């Protein structure tokens, strides 16, 4: 097969069996490419299972810096017989299928339009290792060595990474390096190396880092001054707390006493987790929880209480595909509405939509300021794609001069000097934000009784309708104030004025930006774009949509939830917002967005019309 040589611009996918140690080998491969200065974006596609089911790891290698999912596979490393038929079918024409040739390949699976590269990896492992577990583990490392040969990479960086990972454990380093070298030599011996897809050293990574969003959120909570965390394990959010705990153990142990300057409670369920967060926040600590969709559902009752009683609350929701087990280890942006309007009664909550690890870090840290400033729940809507996959990100930074905004809290001194009566829910400053007091502050002033709905400005129990309305209207004033202070959207405008825009949020960002680039380059279609970063929507969000005849709203759910939120909050004509949806559980691809927009625009000569599949 005659091919063009493609350097640093392809997609490789690893098909493995979960629980076999493939994850660390695959990560070794991707990190090696990253260390060579070539941008990558790896994605895990894993089952709700610990051992024995198919799992995939897809790495996009793109020296142009496009890091969304592209769509299509150029090189498949098929190490799992269970999924082989599907894996072979997925390779794009002109691609390669790398497999373990210890057992011959079923001839029926052969394709003429791709190349098959067989490597007798298990056979080699049987020769070299006695222990079955070692055979399994080193087979993975071996194929990483083979890939290096096939792509024309040197082994020194992979060896360096192994040395860093197992620092001080010389025997392990040696054994891993031997496996790497064996795989490398095996490929060189049996195949012409390098193949048409190649990886060469570049300087395209700069000072960027490779980190997952959950670690960034956990770290953001440390920097944001969280002292109390309560949570219940749920995929894909668990590692937010794992990382919070890890960084707390590193930075929050009192050097003199060895005691913890933090408390993490693994709750009995999500109801208790959010209750603990609310109790701690009510008592003046910065507290947070992390969960996913089902947990958010369970937390609904308490979120309403926090909204009505005006208690700061920070919640990281790492979104996934719905309830129960199975698809929930896949990604979606499907909690948009259930987060924005969580709970009973008239409620709406400040939501933040990070797109990158850096935003996960910054928005989590900022969430504590916002929660205390506005005395209300803040929901950070990450997702599995961002949370559990390594993402190339700008490095994190922190301004040491920054002070935490603890919001409006009367101190003992304030209370002592106060001549008028303290009113917990009085709008003293006209911005809708009342002053609060922590329990135990002053012997005779500032105590109040916290309850949900039935109270006057002084937190005294009442069921009088006017008092209720007064309070609810003040909370809306607070909401208006918040809409001016939450993170603004990111707006990119084309050089010439344009009538069509694209709206996205969260992890749809990278693929959307790339799609817009290619729409321009390939089809001459240039569109304005806006990345929404928060709810309530700031003024700019509505203006952007108003300025365009119609906008696409790109999101990863079935029901066009952000579109619904925009229509509901702004009263837009629904026809002005065209849904562009992807929700099969895999991250949205740039190709998909490009095709959808291209097809729509080429078909649409006048104003947008209804397309039945969306309504």
């Amino acid at each position: 097969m005659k091919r063009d040589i493609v350097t640093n611009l392809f997609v490789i996918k690893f098909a493995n069996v979960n629980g076999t140690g493939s994850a660390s080998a695959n990560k070794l491969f991707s990190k090696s490419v990253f260390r060579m200065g070539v941008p990558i974006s790896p994605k895990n596609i894993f089952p709700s299972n610990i051992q024995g089911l198919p799992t995939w790891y897809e790495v996009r290698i793109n020296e142009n810096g496009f890091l969304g999912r592209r769509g299509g596979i150029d090189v498949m490393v098929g190490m799992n017989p269970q999924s082989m038929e599907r894996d072979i079918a997925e390779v794009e024409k002109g691609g390669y299928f790398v497999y373990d040739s210890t057992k011959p390949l079923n001839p029926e699976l052969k394709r003429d339009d791709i190349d098959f590269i067989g490597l007798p990896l298990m056979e080699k492992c049987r020769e070299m290792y006695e222990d079955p577990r070692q055979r399994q583990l080193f087979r993975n490392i071996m194929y990483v060595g083979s890939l290096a040969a096939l792509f024309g990479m040197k082994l020194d960086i992979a060896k360096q990474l192994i040395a860093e990972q197992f620092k001080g454990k010389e025997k392990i380093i040696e054994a891993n390096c031997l496996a790497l070298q064996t795989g490398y030599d095996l490929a060189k011996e049996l195949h012409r190396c390098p193949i048409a897809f190649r990886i060469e050293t570049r300087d395209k990574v700069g000072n960027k880092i490779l980190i997952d969003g959950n670690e960034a959120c956990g770290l953001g909570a440390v920097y944001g001054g969280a002292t109390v965390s309560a949570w219940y394990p749920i995929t894909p959010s668990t590692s937010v707390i794992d990382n919070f705990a890890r960084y707390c153990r590193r930075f929050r142990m009192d050097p003199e006493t060895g005691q913890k300057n933090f408390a993490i409670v693994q709750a009995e369920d999500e109801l208790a987790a959010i209750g603990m967060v609310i109790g701690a926040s009510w008592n003046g600590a910065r507290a947070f929880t992390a969960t996913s969709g089902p947990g958010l559902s369970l937390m609904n009752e308490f979120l309403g209480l926090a909204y009505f009683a005006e208690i700061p609350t920070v919640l990281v929701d790492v979104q996934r595909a719905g309830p129960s087990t199975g698809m929930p280890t896949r990604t979606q942006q499907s909690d948009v509405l259930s987060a924005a309007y969580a709970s009973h009664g008239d409620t709406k909550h400040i939501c933040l939509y990070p797109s990158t690890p850096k935003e996960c870090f910054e928005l989590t840290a900022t969430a504590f300021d916002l929660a205390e400033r506005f005395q209300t729940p803040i929901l950070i809507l990450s997702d599995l794609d961002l949370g559990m996959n390594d993402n190339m990100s700008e490095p994190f930074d922190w301004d040491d001069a920054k002070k935490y905004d603890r919001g409006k809290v009367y101190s003992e001194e304030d209370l002592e000097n106060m001549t008028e009566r303290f009113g917990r829910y009085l709008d003293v400053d006209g911005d809708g934000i009342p002053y609060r007091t922590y329990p135990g502050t002053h012997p005779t002033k500032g105590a109040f009784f916290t309850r949900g709905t039935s109270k006057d400005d002084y937190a005294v129990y009442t069921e009088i309708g006017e008092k209720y309305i007064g309070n609810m209207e003040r909370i809306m004033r607070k909401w208006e104030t918040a809409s001016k202070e939450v993170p603004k959207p990111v707006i990119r405008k084309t050089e010439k004025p344009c009538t069509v825009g694209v709206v996205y949020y969260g992890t749809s960002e990278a693929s959307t930006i790339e799609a817009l680039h290619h729409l321009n380059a390939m089809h001459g279609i240039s569109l304005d774009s806006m990345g929404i970063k928060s709810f309530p929507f700031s003024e700019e969000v509505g203006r952007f949509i108003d300025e365009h005849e119609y906008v696409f709203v790109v999101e990863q759910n079935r029901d066009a939830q952000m579109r619904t939120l925009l229509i509901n909050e702004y009263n837009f004509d629904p026809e002005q917002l065209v849904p562009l949806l992807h929700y099969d559980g895999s991250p949205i691809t740039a190709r998909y967005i490009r095709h959808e927009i291209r097809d729509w625009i080429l078909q649409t000569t006048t104003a947008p019309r209804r397309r039945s599949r969306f309504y």
Partner: protein
Amino acid sequence: MSYNIPAFRHPNLPKNDLGYTSKDYEGAVSTLCAGCGHDSISAAIIEACFEMSIPPHRVAKLSGIGCSSKTPTYFLGNSHGFNSVHGRMPSVATGANMANRDLLYIGVSGDGDTASIGMGQFVHAVRRNVNMVYICENNGVYGLTKGQDSATTDKGSKSKKGEPNALEPIDLCAIALQLGATFVANSFSGDKDQLVPIIQAAITHKGFAFINVISPCVTFNNTPGSTKSYDFIRQHMASTNTVDYVPPATEITAAYDEGTDERVAMHDGSVITFHKLESKHDIHSRSSALAMMQEFKAEDKVLTGILFIDQDSQDIHEAMNTTAAAPLRSLNADKLCPGSSALEEINNIHR
């Protein structure tokens, strides 16, 4: 509406060590039914705190939902209160306690709030040994929704509607004991002499102090066929002991019969003295407490008093090794934020 009690105070009201009168520990006027057992419990809390000279503002009172959970409005008006979500007071109290270990936490709940909707949170608060007083005002009926049987209603007991309850009750004291609660007491709202020192002992205890207080519902469950009516409890109550709370550094002068009294030193230096009525009960034995309860139940008696104390109790903060130097909520950025240079190191690890 809440109605505040008039500010007028009799000039000769006795004062405690802090110079407060018992009025300073009162709350708003109760809106519960006249004769409700819960009001007696509120009065006992007021008396216990007054006598112990607890600064009212150093108490946080928390509750769930229900008649019992309304009561924190009616005591300790100078304390912060939190009327939270049905069955979820334990989690709110746990979180509050995490934020500031230096306050006294009094949680008030009822039998619906604890034994049904809140059972999950109750058992886990016990298990965590959160340092708090947990009072379950147990009337065996859902009052605020007008008279449904609760999970603590005894089998065969008749509420106002007249139907005997068909199901076995949940015994909260037995469950607390089995879960490893470090302080368990049973009492009766109509027996203030017993209840006040039990509350004082619970306040002194370091860890989760559970007090189940049988508290008759005069409107829905004070009928002749009820096993949680005033008459029934008065006729069937038996005590394992009577209790005296002796504050720290107070000399014990009263003479007690040798062999029948037991003094339990609490961590703050106070002493709980038990005048044993049942010589075979060992206050430090979980199994003895459970066995006694069974025996009395078989005789159709309700055993009251302090059933069990673990003097070596270690609360959740000690178990987790959180800082004792200052409440977590008081820590500032200098202790909490690792700063920019540490962040740059973290960046480097990820390159």
